[in-house]
């Protein structure tokens, strides 16, 4: 076949997806960048106001508090989800009875939507925790924070477990047995033998948890809804509320751009570390 004909086929194959990508991400992305420098309200033609929206963000106490809440949430959930995910992975890769069943159970919450899981936990916090003497769990900022942590921990630990299982299965049984023969204690075995071998899994899981924490919305909406007084409102919810409650479209879009920069930085760092590790390995 001649090259020109190949080119025609190439575009026939690529165009449908490319078109969808341009319509759904490309155009909105560029429009959004432009809107963030205007006074766009979704109705009247936008007027250019340069960086006014961005300047306003720095004095927006609610947005900054959402951002700090989100960062705190991300840090705590990264540590807990990864620690527990790894512990679960190590447990279910042992030759014990019920290992497959355990894995199935621990992973289960991950298949169900965050919105529904949040509603279930709302019931637990409001109606079951008081039975244990823990009242008003969702009515203070700090317990609301831990409520969100518990919910995402329960949902995500199984997912991270599955990732670690994939890496743990690469750890050769021979190496472990040699270490056992040499009388290495379990802690040394973990730190010096197992952990270096599953370290790539750690990078993958860490960044995945990090970017998931920033994008978290459904669970936030259904568990606390930002209550009390928007103090448990995370970044994604803050942006949505700026649109729907305050009708400040252009301002919300400026926040979205900041949000985008944060998430893209995280993803680029992840790729960088993965590449670096691949080169080293």
């Amino acid at each position: 076949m001649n090259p020109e004909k190949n080119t025609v086929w190439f575009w026939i194959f690529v165009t449908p997806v490319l078109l969808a990508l341009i319509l759904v991400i490309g155009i909105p992305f560029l429009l959004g960048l432009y809107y963030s420098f205007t006074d766009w309200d979704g109705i009247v033609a936008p007027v250019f106001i340069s960086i006014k929206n961005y300047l306003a963000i720095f004095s927006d106490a609610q947005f900054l508090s959402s951002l700090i809440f989100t960062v705190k949430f991300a840090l705590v959930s990264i540590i807990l989800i990864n620690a527990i995910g790894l512990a679960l992975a190590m447990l279910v890769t042992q030759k014990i009875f019920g290992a497959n069943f355990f894995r199935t159970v621990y992973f289960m919450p991950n298949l169900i939507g965050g919105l529904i899981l949040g509603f279930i936990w709302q019931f637990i916090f409001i109606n079951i925790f008081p039975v244990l003497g823990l009242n008003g769990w969702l009515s203070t900022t700090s317990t609301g924070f831990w409520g969100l942590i518990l919910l995402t921990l329960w949902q995500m630990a199984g997912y991270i477990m599955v990732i670690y299982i994939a890496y743990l299965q690469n750890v050769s049984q021979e190496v472990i047995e040699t270490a056992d023969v040499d009388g290495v204690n379990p802690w040394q075995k973990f730190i010096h033998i197992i952990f270096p071998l599953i370290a790539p899994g750690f990078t993958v899981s860490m960044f995945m948890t990090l970017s998931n924490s920033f994008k978290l919305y459904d669970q936030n909406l259904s568990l606390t809804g930002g209550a009390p007084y928007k103090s448990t409102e995370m970044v994604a919810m803050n942006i949505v509320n700026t649109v729907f409650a305050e009708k400040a479209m252009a301002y919300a879009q400026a926040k979205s751009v900041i949000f985008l920069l944060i998430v893209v930085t995280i993803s680029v760092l992840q790729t960088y570390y993965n590449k670096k590790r691949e080169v080293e390995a």
Partner: protein
Amino acid sequence: MNKFKKLSLGIIGILISIVWLFPFYIMLINSFKSKKELFKSTIAFPHSFNLKNYAKAIDALSIKTTFFNSAVITISSIVVILIFSALAAYALQRTKTLASKIIFYVFVAAMLIPFQSVMIPLVSFMSKIHLMQSRIGIVIMYLGFGASMAMFLIHGALGSIPTALDEAAKIDGCNPLQTFFIIILPMLKPILVTVAVLDTIWIWNDYLLPSLVINRDDLLTIPLKMYYFFGEYTKQWHLALAGLTIAIIPVIIFYFLAQKQIIQCITDGAVK
């Protein structure tokens, strides 16, 4: 490992399983109680397996329409994503031109953009081109947001399908479209299943995107309907819990029918 250690690890596993299943157990037992019974105790076993709450919840959730909407949107989006992403991946993987390289990196870059950062202009643009409140519109949006990841995974799998097969098909008189559908697509089955599973979990459970582009009652999906339903029955936990149980049942069935494959797909999607 000695027997004692094995046994204690097994017991730890069981204890964690109980903790993990506890929220589901609580949801289930309370969904059978009357309002009065639930008020008396939220941890006691129900007096009887009364299905009244379920009857009411099925009614309030317009269960047939809602499940139908979720199924139609999920299935059509996945079919569209699989076919078009595989077509694009095939063209990009087999062509070594500058255009091909650039387009590949455009897809990779698009993967980095989080939904929340484009949702506001997306909604305004979609209403301008009349794709709001429509199933076709939402399928196009899922294609746009899902294509990159699908294309990326399929692109990776195509590397292990030898080009000699394409050549042979060409000699036999197949045009590229025929080659793709007859020779290549069947060989991609494992990765297509992986993408389908990952996208089913995503689209079936998605709340934010449909909440922005659909609010017509006859188009609502399960998460959307659940949100409205919950708002209406917020002080009536017995009904709300029955509704939640109904929403979860199909997912649990799907999971237990194919849990090994599902977990494998999740692993492939995350680790690749």
